[in-house]
């Protein structure tokens, strides 16, 4: 039977098991929306902006491990979703984005709402397709899902001209895909894995450095097994949080620019770094020339380009984390004995000493301004039994969330790591909520970043996605302010936000619930109240505006040289200022 392109689109999505798509209509995709309207298998979440649609699909993908799907129109619809595609590309999120295109006969004519979607998305997608013939639509969609979800996952764009969605073709959905230029390696080289096992057996100061690859590969169990078997401490990257239980005694927490003292010191003084599904990003390596100066490096990654891109690797293993770890564990199980524990006793003593010397810390006075770290700590304590999904935006609040919200399991942590996209958190949380309607989904945001996709509150209310947003409201772009205090002599160029909206009223204007916790004593009660409400909630928490994130490795600095607290001149300055009033911009600007 012959189907229209729009019907083929829907049939393909059904066969890929897609239950929810995030979409915003426009002229050239109307036929597809018309068909979506006449079926019940796929839910359409209508977003208020295409960037929101893209981030929702990302949140959906990160929480489920399956490909997220979004659908946008041509021209501005496409350009609006670019940020989400670039974000997904940096963080290896499996995403299939469908964009509308002007009819094939008009392509290249500067038609109304025309953009070169293929050209625009090329540098920020794993692959992209322009479907010129309706007969190729089904096989193209099959390939798009295959490419997005296999190997190192990533976003794939399928550009569908209007006429292709309207013309008819025989529908045949291929069972399998074969692309001669694309064959990801899953099984690691056995000889190399053996080398790695031998190095692990001999190491006196080994450290595991694990990233988002462990989560996408579903290798958490294998990782826990490896760490427990060999008693090796585990450092997690920002993307890797949740890959290993945050409360586990072997967990060192996050490493890198704002990582814990013990995580960074252990990297620096290690004699064997075992990198798994991580990519030696500049926020982790700091100064490359002095990165892990004493260590041999094992690097397991499914993407060969990640290996030796930034630093020299001694034992490279190209493969899927899960497959490689299984193989590695098998070898180690047969060889590990009591000797390793003895060999590494001094190392563990040292690590525990580092932990005691400089734990994460902040001062919360009972009648003073609320400290942002305290909010996250309380949120964590009050919700951890409910196994929440947590999203963040980008900035200080993101780093505090990474430090204090200790995730027990993978696929609970939605954050923008590589691209650092403010405005990611709220739509990402909604995407996760759309996948898991009954779970508790929290969005930790700053007052700056939440405003970057605030319009999606309408989507949350209408589509009944009861995300709980906790706004750490310091009236600043806090991370910018921190850098200005540390490196620009405290000149707050364009970092003070002055009159922020009243988030409580704003929530109410959208038909959501707004709450405020103004005092330390109110916080627990307000958070509990918010969690109990079955609607989207914004909790506005005015926080101390001059709190800084520590430890901190300055950009280009070395991993063992962390700034651990405010330098004395900054402390003095802040003591004089006290809590800034949101209306009193002069106080802040002249401080």
């Amino acid at each position, binding site marked *: 039977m012959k189907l229209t392109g729009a019907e083929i689109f829907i049939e393909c999505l059904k066969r890929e098991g897609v239950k929810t798509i995030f979409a915003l209509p426009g002229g050239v995709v109307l036929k597809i929306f018309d068909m979506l309207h006449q079926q019940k298998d796929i839910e359409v979440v209508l977003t208020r902006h295409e960037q929101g649609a893209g981030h929702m699909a990302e949140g959906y993908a990160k929480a489920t491990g399956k490909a997220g799907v979004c659908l946008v129109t041509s021209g501005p619809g496409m350009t609006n979703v670019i940020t989400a595609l670039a974000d997904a590309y940096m963080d290896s999120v499996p995403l299939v984005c469908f964009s509308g295109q002007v009819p094939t006969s008009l392509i290249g004519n500067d038609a109304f709402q025309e953009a070169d979607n293929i*050209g625009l998305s*090329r*540098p920020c997608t794993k692959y992209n397709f322009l479907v010129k013939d309706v007969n190729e639509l089904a096989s193209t969609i099959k390939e798009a899902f295959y*490419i997005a979800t296999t190997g190192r996952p990533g976003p794939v764009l399928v550009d569908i001209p209007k006429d292709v969605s309207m013309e008819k073709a025989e529908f045949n959905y291929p069972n399998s895909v074969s692309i001669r*230029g*694309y064959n990801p390696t899953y099984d690691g080289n056995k000889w190399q894995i053996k080398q790695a096992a031998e190095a692990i057996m001999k190491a006196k100061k080994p450290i595991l450095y694990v990233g988002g690859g462990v989560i996408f590969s579903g290798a958490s169990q294998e990782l826990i097994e490896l760490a427990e078997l060999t008693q090796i401490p585990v450092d997690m990257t920002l993307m890797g949080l949740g890959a290993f239980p945050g409360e586990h005694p072997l967990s060192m927490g996050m490493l890198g620019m704002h990582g814990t003292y013990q995580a960074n010191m252990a990297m620096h003084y290690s004699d064997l770094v075992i990198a798994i599904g991580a990519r030696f990003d500049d926020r982790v390596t700091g100064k490359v020339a002095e990165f892990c100066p004493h260590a041999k490096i094992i690097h397991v990654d499914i993407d*060969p*380009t990640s290996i030796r891109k930034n630093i020299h690797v001694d034992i490279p293993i190209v493969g899927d984390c899960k497959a490689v770890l299984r193989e590695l564990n098998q070898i180690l199980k047969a060889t590990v004995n009591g000797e390793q524990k003895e060999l590494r006793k001094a190392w563990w003593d040292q690590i525990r000493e580092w932990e005691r010397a400089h734990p994460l810390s902040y001062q919360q006075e009972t009648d003073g301004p609320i400290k942002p770290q305290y909010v996250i700590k309380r949120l964590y304590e009050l919700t951890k039994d409910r196994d929440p999904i947590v999203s963040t935006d980008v900035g200080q609040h993101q780093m505090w969330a990474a430090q204090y919200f200790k995730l027990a399991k993978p696929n609970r942590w939605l954050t923008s790591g590589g691209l650092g996209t403010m405005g990611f958190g709220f739509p990402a949380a909604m995407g996760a909520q759309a996948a898991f309607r009954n779970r508790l989904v929290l969005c930790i945001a700053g007052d700056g970043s939440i405003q970057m996709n605030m319009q999606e509150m309408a989507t949350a209310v209408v589509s009944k996605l009861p995300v709980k947003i906790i706004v750490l409201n310091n009236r600043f772009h806090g991370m910018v302010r921190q850098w200005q205090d540390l490196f620009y002599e405290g000149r707050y160029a364009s970092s003070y936000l002055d009159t922020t909206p009243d988030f409580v009223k704003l929530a109410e204007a959208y038909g959501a619930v707004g709450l405020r916790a103004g005092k330390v004593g109110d916080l627990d009660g307000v958070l509990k109240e918010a969690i109990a409400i079955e609607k989207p909630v914004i909790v506005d928490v005015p926080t101390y505006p001059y709190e800084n994130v520590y430890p901190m490795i300055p950009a280009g600095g070395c991993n063992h040289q962390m700034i651990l607290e405010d330098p004395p001149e900054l402390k003095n300055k802040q003591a004089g200022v006290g809590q800034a009033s949101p209306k009193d911009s002069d106080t802040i600007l002249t401080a």
Partner: protein
Amino acid sequence: MEHIISVTVENKFGVLSRIAGLFSGRGFNIESLSVAPTLDPSMSQMTIVTSGDERIVEQIVKQLNKLIDVIKVVDLNESDFVSRETALIKVHTRQEDRAEALRIADIFRANVIDSTPATYTIEVTGDPKKIEAIINLLQPLGIKELTRTGRVAVAREPLRFSAAQPKKVARE
């Protein structure tokens, strides 16, 4: 160091821009690039002349391999190879220079492929040094136009000292 990389790609629209975009987006050099279909018309063969230290060239090869439309990548510098380039050179020729131009062409085994009373168009093929050399010699006559193909290259077959071996296999 200069490297010549031979890349087999899908013969589809947009592939060239994926390759060019990879090089510009990651700050790799392209000194020359030539493309044409292979015996199998569904594939094209590219020869890319690039430069960089060992680590950069390793990344270039890996990044090219990562592109989905790329079928095969060979860094020809890893073994022995031969490379050639063709140039078409249009030279001004006054009456008294015409014999000189022909002599120079002859020395380089170049061909005159077009001739007018005031110009010769000379076709020359060889390695880059040879092309440079003929250009230098023709320059005093006055070069009106110059167009070069960029290099193409192919790996040398390893020499087989026991030439009888393959025949024997064939007989069996």
